[in-house]
């Protein structure tokens, strides 16, 4: 409610200053257009304000006060890859149990592990397994797998290459293999597309493909900053190769088999596909009742369908 109030004040403030500004500046120029714009703006503002009031009126009815889960107060932080799952689950959980409050923030996997270990948050999120150094330093940490993710290597549908070995993929991504004919394709330059530093998808790819040979992804690749843009880029160029979170693969691009294994939900779940990972929610010690309630929700039907909605693979 307070949030809406600030937005409301903000809108009024912006409108007032825009109005005052337009009064002072440019009195002579384009008077007609300006006044038209202002009228429309006023209507728009009124619409926005009334809608926001309406919405706030709708959601404020607190029904079901005998719900035992109204006093759930949780802090969650960590990996931005897990963030959509945590945020969406928290939102639905709070809707179902009015009065409960779950704050979700990012910061990265390492931050999530550290924060839950030193008690700053109740649940830490990580998109990688606990490092041995971490589990040695904090033996009390209990990871709960909430989702799986596979990263598919994709090419343009017209590309004749359907199979790659891990070595070929390493060659392409380190920049030593630069022509499709070297991996069984046509004679054309390979356009390597990659994700930005820090991306969870990139991290998953690096851990599985680049880490065994201790190499960095080539600097000469095109960098796109989301799965959607990556897919659009690969779909738009016959020379492109790029990696996508499995949930984003559609008919615009073609996923190649890696060492003969097709990236599918099944091959990721049974672990035969190489580039995959588990997304974790970590508690310090066994979860207390509030933490357990939230984890039950995430691992339940509703939570797992949210996992699917945000393009990950359910664990249950």
């Amino acid at each position, binding site marked *: 409610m307070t949030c809406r109030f600030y937005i409301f004040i903000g809108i009024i403030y912006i409108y*007032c*200053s825009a109005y*005052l*500004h337009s009064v*002072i500046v440019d009195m002579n120029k384009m008077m007609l*257009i300006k006044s038209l714009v202002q009228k429309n703006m006023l209507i728009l503002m009124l619409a926005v304000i009334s809608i926001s009031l309406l919405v706030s009126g709708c959601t404020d009815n607190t029904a079901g006060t005998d719900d035992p889960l109204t006093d759930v107060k949780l802090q969650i932080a960590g990996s*931005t890859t897990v963030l959509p799952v945590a945020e969406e689950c928290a939102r639905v959980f709070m809707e179902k149990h009015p009065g409960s409050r779950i704050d979700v923030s990012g*910061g*990265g996997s*390492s*931050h999530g592990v550290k924060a839950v270990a030193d008690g700053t948050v109740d649940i830490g999120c990580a998109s990688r397994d606990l490092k041995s150094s971490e589990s040695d330093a904090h033996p009390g940490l209990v990871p709960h797998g909430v989702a799986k993710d596979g990263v598919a290597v994709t090419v343009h549908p017209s590309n004749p290459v359907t199979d790659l070995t891990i070595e070929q993929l390493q060659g392409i991504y380190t920049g030593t293999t630069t022509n499709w004919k070297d991996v069984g394709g046509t004679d054309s*330059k390979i*356009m390597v597309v990659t994700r*930005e*530093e*820090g*991306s*969870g998808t990139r991290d998953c790819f*690096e851990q599985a493909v*680049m*880490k065994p040979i*201790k*190499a*960095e992804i080539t*600097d*000469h*690749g*095109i*960098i*796109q*900053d989301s799965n959607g*843009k990556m897919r*659009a*880029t690969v779909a*738009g*160029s016959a*020379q492109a190769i790029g990696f996508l979170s499995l949930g984003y693969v559609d008919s615009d691009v073609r996923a190649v088999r890696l060492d003969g294994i097709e990236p599918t939900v099944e091959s990721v779940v049974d672990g035969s596909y190489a580039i995959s990972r588990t997304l974790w929610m970590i508690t310090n010690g066994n979860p207390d009742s509030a933490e357990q309630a939230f984890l039950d929700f995430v691992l339940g039907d509703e939570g797992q369908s949210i996992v699917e909605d945000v393009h990950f693979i359910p664990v249950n």
Partner: protein
Amino acid sequence: MTRQTRERIIEALLFASAVSAVVIVLLIMVFLFKEGAPFLLRYGIHTFCLGMDWNPIAMTGEPSYGIFPMIVGSVYIAAGSLVLAVPLGLGCAVFLVEIAPPWAEAVIRRGIELLVGIPSVVLGFFGLVLLVPLIRDSVGGFGFSILAGSVILAIMALPHIISISADAITAVPETYKQASLALGATRWHTIRNVILPAARSGIVAAIILGMGNSIGETMAVLMVTGNSAILPEPLYDVLDPVRTMTANIVIEMNYAAPGDHQQALFATGIVLFVMVAILNAISHRALKSRMEGGR
């Protein structure tokens, strides 16, 4: 309410809105420098600005934060957009003020206003699905390039360049033109040798403002430039991908862990801020000299 109190209230409101702009700028500056400056000093302004290697999350060895390729990228794309937009914009401004019949002027001005209204991300998407393949197929390279970024930015800079230089041309005293025509000069002669030189400082201001806008633009650019944090090879190859400073901040801020990486992005913001501030100061100078000497 008496007229006097009403006046006072309006004055107070006006003052508040005027001050709020300054306060907001100051707050942003303080925030930016608080977040980025310690890192900049610790890592070294020199190594940061002239470093060639950007690798904030190193698989092996130490992370490195060098933004020189991005400074080059930003300047390249801004300059490229001006090369495309200035001749077009200037021609359009001259046509609007000196030649166009009223109906044509009205149509063109409407068109320019519409151009301002197109959100940059829409232009970026247009670039990604149309311009990039077009460049790849007809010019060469992968399409994600300095050229693509420059074209998109030129489209965005055009309206600003046109409106400011049209104002500058309009401000040239009518007597100059009459004198020139009375001496027997042709229309083109008058435009080239009298009107344009007289409006020069305003046009320079338009160009520099355009450059400042271009350097600061983000969304459209990052969709079409490929964002590789390397220098083009060879250096003049406009078909190579580059990353601009703005794109660097946007694409990595989502994930940057608190610490050096995040602070390095704020430091990138400081460098960008300083560059744009310098450009704005220069264009302000140019505009001011017009005000003093022009009329």
